[in-house]
């Protein structure tokens, strides 16, 4: 037997170390995804005769899906939700917090804790907490606050449903954005700032010419993670609005749940999940390509 080289042994070691992660990913990500795809080609259901004996229906579920205005509405709502909360809300506020907390601010630890706290609360608890905030009638927390300014009690989740869930998700996600972007800011060499100041650069010039370009890989990494995770959100919106009123907050996660566990149509629900996975993957690929951006 030919003796193994050092390089071969090292490669083998790497593969060995990756094996547990790969096995878990195969069992809990790849297999379920493949199973979901096979399910999407059937009329399987949790109730009724199809639950006992499902049959192959080819692409019928996908045909139904693409002609279903509620699916397209759900996709549109999801995109607005992702752009509004992850791409704009969480990123802008997280970046501002990260920049501010880089400065010598008094009581920095307290501000840090306040910003990080929402991320420590479970998704469902956040939902119930904000239900009480947005509750209609004179006893809703937000209604009590606006009453000080003479504003009549509002039905926030009815009047501004999508905006409300965007605000809640932004509030919850600022901490993650701030932590990731702070690590990005810390990795920028201090010499660059010093050199720029010696050359007479203003704060604005430093931000646009040094901070932002140096932060691009971190920003894209953040965008990638937050877009994909926000795309998959379910519990928060389910608790707050269950997709209503009038489907105005029915993001894809809710739509899949409603089809699979309210109408109990597993085959159709799986078809929507497959399409949702494809959309997420396309967005992921876009970001991965963008991550190769030259700084």
């Amino acid at each position, binding site marked *: 037997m030919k003796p193994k080289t050092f390089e071969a042994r090292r490669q083998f070691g790497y593969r060995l170390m990756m094996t547990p992660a790969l096995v878990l990913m195969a069992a809990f990500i790849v297999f379920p995804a493949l199973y979901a795809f096979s399910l999407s080609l059937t009329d399987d259901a949790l109730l009724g005769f199809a639950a006992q004996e499902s049959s192959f229906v080819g692409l019928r579920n996908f045909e139904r899906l693409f002609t279903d*205005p509620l699916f397209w509405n759900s996709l549109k709502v999801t995109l607005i939700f992702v752009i509004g909360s992850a791409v704009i809300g969480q990123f802008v506020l997280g970046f501002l917090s990260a920049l501010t907390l880089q400065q010598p601010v008094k009581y920095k630890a307290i501000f840090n804790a306040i910003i990080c706290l929402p991320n420590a609360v479970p998704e469902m608890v956040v939902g119930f907490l904000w239900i009480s905030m947005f509750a209609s009638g004179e006893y809703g927390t937000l209604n009590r606050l606006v009453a000080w300014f003479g504003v009549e009690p509002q039905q926030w*989740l*009815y009047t501004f449903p999508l905006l409300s869930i965007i605000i809640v998700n932004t509030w919850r996600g600022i901490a993650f954005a701030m932590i990731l972007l702070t690590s990005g800011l810390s990795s920028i060499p201090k010499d660059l700032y010093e050199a720029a100041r010696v050359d007479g650069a203003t704060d604005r010039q430093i931000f646009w010419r040094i901070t932002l370009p140096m932060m691009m890989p971190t920003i894209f990494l953040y965008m990638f993670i937050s877009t994909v995770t926000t795309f998959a959100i379910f519990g928060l919106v389910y608790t707050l609005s269950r997709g*209503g009123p009038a489907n105005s907050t029915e993001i894809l996660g809710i739509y899949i749940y409603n089809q699979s566990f309210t109408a109990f149509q597993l085959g*159709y629900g799986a078809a929507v999940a497959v399409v949702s996975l494809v959309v997420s993957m396309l967005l992921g690929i876009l970001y991965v390509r963008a991550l190769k951006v030259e700084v």
Partner: protein
Amino acid sequence: MRQTIKLLLLPVAAVVAIGWCHSTSQGRGEPPVADSTQPVLVIAEHRAARLDALRELQPMLQQRLGVQLRIVEYPAPPQDYFTKLVTELRAGNAPDVFSIPRDLQVDDLAAAGYLADLTQDLQAWPGYASMPELVRQLSRASFNEKSYVVPSIVAVEQLYYRHDLLTQAGISTEQPKDWQDLLARSRQIKQKLGQFPLLIPAGLTWGMGSYTEGFRYLLASFSGYQLLTSDNRYALRDPAVAKAFDFYHTLVSEQLMPVAPLLNPEPWVIPKYEMFPKGQLLITTCGSWCKTFDWGPGSRNPIANVDDAVRTWRFPSADGAEPFALASVVYAWAVNANSRKPELARALALLMGDNDVALAYAKRLGNVPARLDAAQHPKFAELGAMTADHALLPQARALRSTVGANAMMAGVARATEAVLIGKVDGAGAQQLLLQYVSHVLGEDTVGKNREVEINHSALAQAEGKALQQEAQ
């Protein structure tokens, strides 16, 4: 290094401490086990009032059957309870005995093969003979006429109105004869009191209640209408369906019904628990439980002297026939088809239909026993005003359903929501319902007995246009 080891040991210590606390706390709340050699039956239950009733009955049930009962607590909201139950039945790890929230879910579960056939057990059981025919019919699956559940309690639903406020305002409190009479009374209330007169549940967030507590009543108002055709399909093309949606449309367009609260995540909270007690809503559909839970002395917003202040009308018909009360078999007991102790599980299910059990549940839940002979039980008088609801059972009305009831109810919720937000009228809502049900269950599930045909392209256009307008 020491610091690192300490940090690593900290979570381990926390897990051990939590495990110890958990193990010492276990068993404190559980009743003493009579005999560990007895077979164990697992029974599912949910909601505090139902769990209290079952725990109270547990020693008696254990003694009579010679088993240990293990009660598994499920999520409280009926829809969440049902979803969890269905997923466990599918996974093969569901309890031996469980209850089914509404009679119209029985067909779907039976067709899926989850329920044990109890036909012979029920026919040999004396309790079955003392049930009114309507209740017996609702315990059978419509597709094969076999019985799969043991009815225990029944919900009797009517219109509840503020007798005190209507009398004060000089508005008649006589039983409305038909829909026109009810509408005329509602307009009079709006004119004289300036409040919303009538609530009939509707919309997406009310879930299956939009059908069971709202639309079902309107359909049952047509004396000749049945939800199922003779070949066991949904009779959704019937003109009665469009007329029922039109009733909603009238209520919405004339602002006789509060719409905004129905679009909230918990749509029943504002109209039933706040507006009705405050007199901002005068008539609502409800059941015998409402005087206890919604407006009784222990509720959040109690109505003073509720038995006198709130009275009932039977539902007026659409076509001048006799007014009626609606009955539903709620939380009937079923046996898991894959139970490992099928005989004991069947015996337990039958025991849950006993009058002792039914009365214990009925009293806590505000429902009435399913058996007519419960009226002779010494504890029957403890039901108070609900005894009058029990007396309505033999003449009550109900609509049978078949496989696909969940999809049909989801369709009703969507269609009524479209009426609420002014997107469609009665005919449009019927189209939406037909489209949804045929989309989900297939065209052949919808009976072809009447003239309404589905216009898919026009509907897609209308819905797309409406969604665009909403977005703008």
